[in-house]
């Protein structure tokens, strides 16, 4: 049939084009990349593994898989940042080898996960910590101290002057100016906003009436800026401004950070150390190597505003080649080489105590 041959010719164009493209295509992008963070010694397992889940840890995973692949050519991890819920679903349906999640699985999900792991329990392994710093621009006032209720009232637009009695009560020694407070927030959707509003929502429900969300609630007002870099730029130009960013942005740009009162009423500066302290007070709600944590925003020790994201993995029961890859990859990410990468991409490493537990758990994977 003539017609058939024409259509076949069209199909041939497609196939030939695709083949030509893939023949001259290259996966080699090693041109100008630096080896500063290259992992020293990884257990190299080649293969391709799929994972999905939390977008909050996307940048960390991206950096890890890049560095891991540099040390171990032919190892490909495909991480789909679909969000925690979708990630857990894909995991329990058996479509991905592990899931990234900001929250722990509920009982029903855990039961499905057990089924997916052929009757073995799935473990939560904390891998990435995301501390949020409260930054401000008020020359002459260093070490501003804020209680959660005051912080929420400022961002809700209820406190509008820096010398408001509530702020003064938190800072008895500071010389507060009679100027307007200019709250700045992320205009785009952001995991940082979600962490921060989640914190405000759980500790200051009277002052902060909105649900936690990736998008800043418009009713709360304030000035918007795009991306963390934008927030930093606007804050630097705005005297009297206050905002929130991932901790690494605050340290990198040498900004004034506020001390936040934790559950014991102590005002704590944000740092890897103080976040680690708070992390150590979190209660382990999982059994044995299942390191599911119950975070306490009213923690009695350490800095309270942060988020922990997990990798959810089968303790046993994955097909051998996948299990081997997952174990090798997580051994790298939980190890010192992997954790030290985190500060460069906007996160904080696990506290030494927790990292030890995670390494032991990864070791026990099979």
């Amino acid at each position: 049939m003539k017609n058939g041959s024409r259509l076949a010719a069209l199909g041939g164009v497609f196939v030939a084009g695709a083949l030509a493209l893939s023949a001259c295509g290259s996966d080699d992008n090693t041109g100008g990349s630096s080896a500063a963070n290259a992992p020293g010694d990884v257990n190299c397992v080649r293969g391709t593994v799929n994972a999905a889940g939390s977008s909050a840890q996307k940048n960390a995973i991206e950096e890890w898989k890049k560095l891991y692949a540099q040390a171990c050519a032919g190892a490909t991890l495909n991480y789909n940042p679909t969000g925690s819920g979708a990630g857990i679903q894909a995991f329990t349906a058996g479509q991905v080898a592990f899931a990234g999640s900001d929250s722990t699985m509920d009982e029903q999900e855990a039961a499905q996960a057990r089924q997916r792991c052929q009757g073995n329990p799935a473990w939560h392994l904390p891998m990435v910590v995301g501390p949020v710093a409260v930054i401000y621009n008020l020359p002459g006032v260093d070490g501003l101290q804020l209680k959660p209720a005051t912080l929420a009232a400022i961002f809700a637009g209820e406190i509008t002057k820096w010398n408001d009695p509530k702020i003064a009560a938190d800072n008895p020694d500071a010389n507060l100016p009679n100027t307007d407070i200019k709250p700045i927030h992320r205009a785009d959707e952001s995991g940082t906003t979600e962490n921060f509003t989640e914190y405000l929502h759980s500790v200051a429900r009277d002052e902060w009436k909105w649900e936690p969300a990736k998008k800043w609630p418009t009713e709360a007002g304030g000035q918007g800026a795009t991306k963390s870099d934008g927030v930093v730029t606007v804050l630097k130009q705005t005297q009297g401004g206050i905002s929130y960013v991932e901790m690494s942005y605050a340290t990198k740009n040498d900004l004034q950070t506020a001390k936040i009162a934790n559950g014991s009423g102590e005002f704590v500066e944000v740092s890897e150390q103080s976040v680690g302290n708070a992390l150590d007070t979190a209660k382990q709600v999982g059994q044995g190597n299942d390191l599911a944590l119950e975070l306490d925003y009213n923690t009695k020790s350490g800095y309270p505003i942060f988020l922990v994201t997990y990798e959810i993995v089968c303790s046993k029961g994955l097909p051998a080649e996948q299990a081997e890859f997952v174990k090798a990859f997580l051994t790298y990410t939980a190890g010192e080489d992997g954790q030290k990468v985190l500060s460069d991409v906007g996160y904080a490493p696990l506290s030494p105590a927790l990292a030890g537990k995670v390494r032991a758990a990864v070791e026990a994977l099979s």
Partner: protein
Amino acid sequence: MSVMTGERGEAPTGGGTLPEISFRRRAADKVVQALVYAAFVLAIVPLVSVLWMVIGRGLERLDPTFLTHSMNGLSSGDEGGGANHAIVGTLEQVGLTSAMAVPLGVLTAVYLVEYGRGRRLAKVITFVVDVMTGIPSIVAGLFVLAFWLLALGFDYSGFAGSLALAILMLPTVVRATEEMLLLVPGDLREAAYALGVPRWRTVCFVVLPTALPGIVTGVMLAVARVMGETAPLLLLIFITDAINANPFSGPQGSLPTFIWYQAGDPNPQAVERAWAAALTLILIIMLLNLGARLLSRLRKPVSR
């Protein structure tokens, strides 16, 4: 024809027998003319501005590296990298889609027009095709996800994506082909029958070649439509930064999902890649269109 109408139109005015056209009618004519031009400009503004934006911003990163390299081993904040894995994925997925949907669609249309007129089965098929036209792309994606991936247990692959795209493409092809076959004059068929040509040969060698240019145009529109389809692919082909030339196994990239992921990334380098990928997609669709036009022109039936 045009010469004749010209003569007819001029004759009365030349003779001067009719009164001058009234001011009211001339004004109405001008107003409507202006409105039509305004509508034309209105319709062209979005098109031009989209093209302008895409070309202007896409050219910044549309270089050989972009076309020949994948994103393997790069994080989104890094310079360089490219969309080769996505281009390969899109071409293979759309190729597979066309291989499934075009023959099926054309044969369905042939049955509807040539064999099934007035039969109950044909009515049912027409109805089902109409319903399929209205299926939102995400629903097609969810259907394949539930059926192919969850129920039958296959893995993410480019082929899963093309299954969903084929569902979307099929009704468009059937509709377009049906319209074109209906336009083929009945005289041609009768002439063939009169010469003793059997029905199937009439369809193959008279009807289809006559309708071919129209069918090709319809198919190309359908290809262009599914090539930009994002939602089902997000569910079905997963995500990968490496080139995977095998659409039947493992995650594949595709241009629409590549644009989606890169444009949603906060790093300016990723946004530049998204623009370049958008331009690439437009260029590929344009090239395919040109190629198909050329093909159907070269193989045009002998002019009568």
